[in-house]
């Protein structure tokens, strides 16, 4: 194979990829929620990064003036760091794991959280004292109680996030704060959350714009309530092969 041939092939592939990225940007501008379906090695991460760069370059003043954040949810902390490196220091784009994101969204509603962990036996800690809970916190992901502070288990955060998503006022404030939510490897997302995103926001055509990036075939954590393929009339599908 000659070098020239490789180069021509590369140019062709790049042109094709750029076309898809341009399509994603067009969809972003339209305000519709969308799903980018990309098989293994199709350059999904590349697309996600291009999208983030585009948002950072074009939406900065729009979002910062309204004190809004774009969230980019990834599955691992390592992936969070990869994206963070590409962002400006004071960027309005927040790369985050779903747990950290959910916790940041719900932590200020302490009265709701305290009530939930006090009443619902599902949240009862195995260790700790019997003091009344006065604060709910999330640090290491162990569930225990100390001096009236109840620390949450990772999955507790997701469940409490769902509990709050069921509240209309929470959704209103949430949608105001996060006008655009990008989710990488969406197929592995916690299904109850995705169901609420679709039901409360996408289906009704209100709230944040969602961008799902992933490959429905690659669902790895099926046992852990992973959502798999997300389908809805109001989600534009962009295929990348």
């Amino acid at each position, binding site marked *: 194979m000659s070098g020239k041939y490789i180069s021509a092939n590369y140019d062709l592939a790049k042109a094709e990829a750029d076309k898809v990225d341009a399509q994603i940007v067009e969809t972003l501008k339209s305000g519709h929620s969308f799903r980018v379906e990309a098989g293994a090695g199709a350059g999904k991460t590349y697309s996600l990064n291009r999208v983030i760069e585009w948002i950072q370059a074009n939406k900065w*003043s729009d979002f*910062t*003036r*309204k*004190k*809004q954040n774009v969230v980019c949810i990834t599955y691992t902390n390592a992936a969070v760091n990869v994206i963070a490196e590409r962002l400006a220091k004071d960027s309005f784009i927040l790369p985050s794991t779903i747990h950290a994101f959910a916790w940041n969204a719900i932590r*200020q*509603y*302490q*009265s*709701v959280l305290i009530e939930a962990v006090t009443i619902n036996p599902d949240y009862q800690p195995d260790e700790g004292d019997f003091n009344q809970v006065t604060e709910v916190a999330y640090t290491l992901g162990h569930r225990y109680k100390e001096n009236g502070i109840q620390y949450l288990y990772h999955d507790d955060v997701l469940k409490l996030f769902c509990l*709050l998503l069921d*509240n*209309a*006022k*929470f959704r*209103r*404030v949430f*949608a*105001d*704060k996060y006008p655009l939510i990008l989710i990488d490897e969406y197929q592995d997302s916690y299904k109850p959350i995705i169901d609420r995103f679709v039901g409360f926001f996408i289906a009704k055509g*209100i*709230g944040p714009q969602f961008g799902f990036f992933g490959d429905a075939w690659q669902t790895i954590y099926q046992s852990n309530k992973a959502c798999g393929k997300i389908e809805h009339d109001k989600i534009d599908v962009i295929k990348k092969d």
Partner: protein
Amino acid sequence: MEKKLSYEDLCKQVEIISIDFLVDYSLDDPDDNLGALSPFIIDVDVDTTTALIRVEYRLKTDEKTLWALLESSYYKDGAFAPNEEAHDVLADNFGKLFGLTVYAINPNNLEDKQVKSQKELHDLFPFYAIPAERVLGEDDTQNSSLGSLISGFFDMSEGELDPEVAEEIKRLRKIVEKANNDVQKQSDEILSSVVNNSIGFGYPNIEELKLGVTTQLNIDEQIKNQTRLSYISGTANESLPSSHNGLGYKNLIKIEFLLTAFAKDIEKRGIACVPLLFIEEPESHMHPQMQTAFAAYLEKFLGKLSTVVQIQTFLTSHSAHIANTMEFAKVRYAQKSNAGVIYKNLNTFAQANPDNIDFIRKYLTLTKCDLFFADKAIFIEGASERLLLPDMIEKCVTAGEFGSCKYPLSAQYYALIEIGGAYAHKFIPFIEFLGIPCLILTDLDPVADRKGRGGKIVKKSVVTGEGETTSNETIKWWVRKNKGLPDNDTSKIELSEIIAMTSDDKTRGKCHIEFQTAEKGLCGHSLEEAIRNVNRKYYNLSNRIGEKKLEFTGKSKTDFALDLISKCSNYSVPDYIKSGLKWLNDQRVLE
């Protein structure tokens, strides 16, 4: 060592200074951006649309640090014995001991609160203060608002530029860029040759190595730092430095620049906040007309900005010209009292007294009276009183009528308000609201039923002896109030009843009313008559005259007053004025 006070009890004993902010928001319109307010919304009740934010200034050090800071100066050998430096130690460490704590509070459950950062508060309420002590002109570099404004124009991206100046700024930038390059190139060439020629010790020699010189020249920096305002006089085409201009204009221009800088900052900060603007006494060095115009200008200026975002402005002023221009709803009246400063919301008064408010506001605006800034007020009938009262007050002081008080009425700040008996009563509720001691000097205005044209019975002005009642609305209002009758009661009030009023009857709260009383057997029914009555000799009146003779028949009341002051300087002051002034002199301002 025995612990007499727990740390928690100490915290409780140190008084907390706190301020509550209530911010209303709407949930209905999804496009209505909550922005910087959302961290403070900690409830999930859809019917609650107010956020409660509390900021406390309180003891912030923990027990250990507090102990470490203070022990050495307050305790000796385990006993409480503050030494001489104890107070200084406390003063020096004030900033460490006390601090701000910001809370978001759940309006439905005040126990539910959480600490927020000062940055979050500042994001919500970006504020800007134009202090009274502003350095005028552009002579100081630190305070150079013009310089910073121009720097801003240089640093801003094209999209951020105000379209009104964008073209000019772009042209200026281009010129500066070109000049930067040209000057740089030429100066480098010349300087290099200068250096090459002047360093003549042979090494490095010309064949081997050429020395180059570059100087960093930045013309834009020059423009940013060295631009000074000058004033070009319209006709002479002469340009004068800022320091040659009057303080009034300088002050106005300074405020304008500061406001523009504020506007730029607000634009950058965006729409999701509640910007606060504080302007302290803008009136300094401004003449009265300019003060009035300034207040109107400010409203317009802020209105222009508020298409993007609502700016809440706090303006403090000692200027009657500014205060009278403002709508009552926007005025908060600060009053000193022994218990501290009391703030009165004129909006609450305006809403409780919708009938009077228009009249009062119009009156204050038209007469430019300084009621807001006076310690005491005197309501008078007209020009004669206005001219004579200051002199009469002096006379009372000299005659020892005010006893031995340190600051007699003449040294107190009283406002004379020319408002006749027909309207004075409309002002009384307002005066009561402000809480200023007020003396009302009015006329008895006796009237009686007389046959008018066509035999109709009408009320006519008569001498006191023949009077049946009064036509003075304020006296009528007063008597009705004393009797507990409604304002619109129409039952006849006997003149004898009015004349018989005691000093107590004439006092209602902080207001006192006085009108002509009988002296030397006669009772005049205006100030002029009362003066003629007690100065009979000067007016060639005998001691056996009747009330009709007291009548003032001159054309000008002003002439009457000026004539008295200039030609009869030792005249006697009528009793009703004396007792009124004595009452007012004794009223305490601070309570």
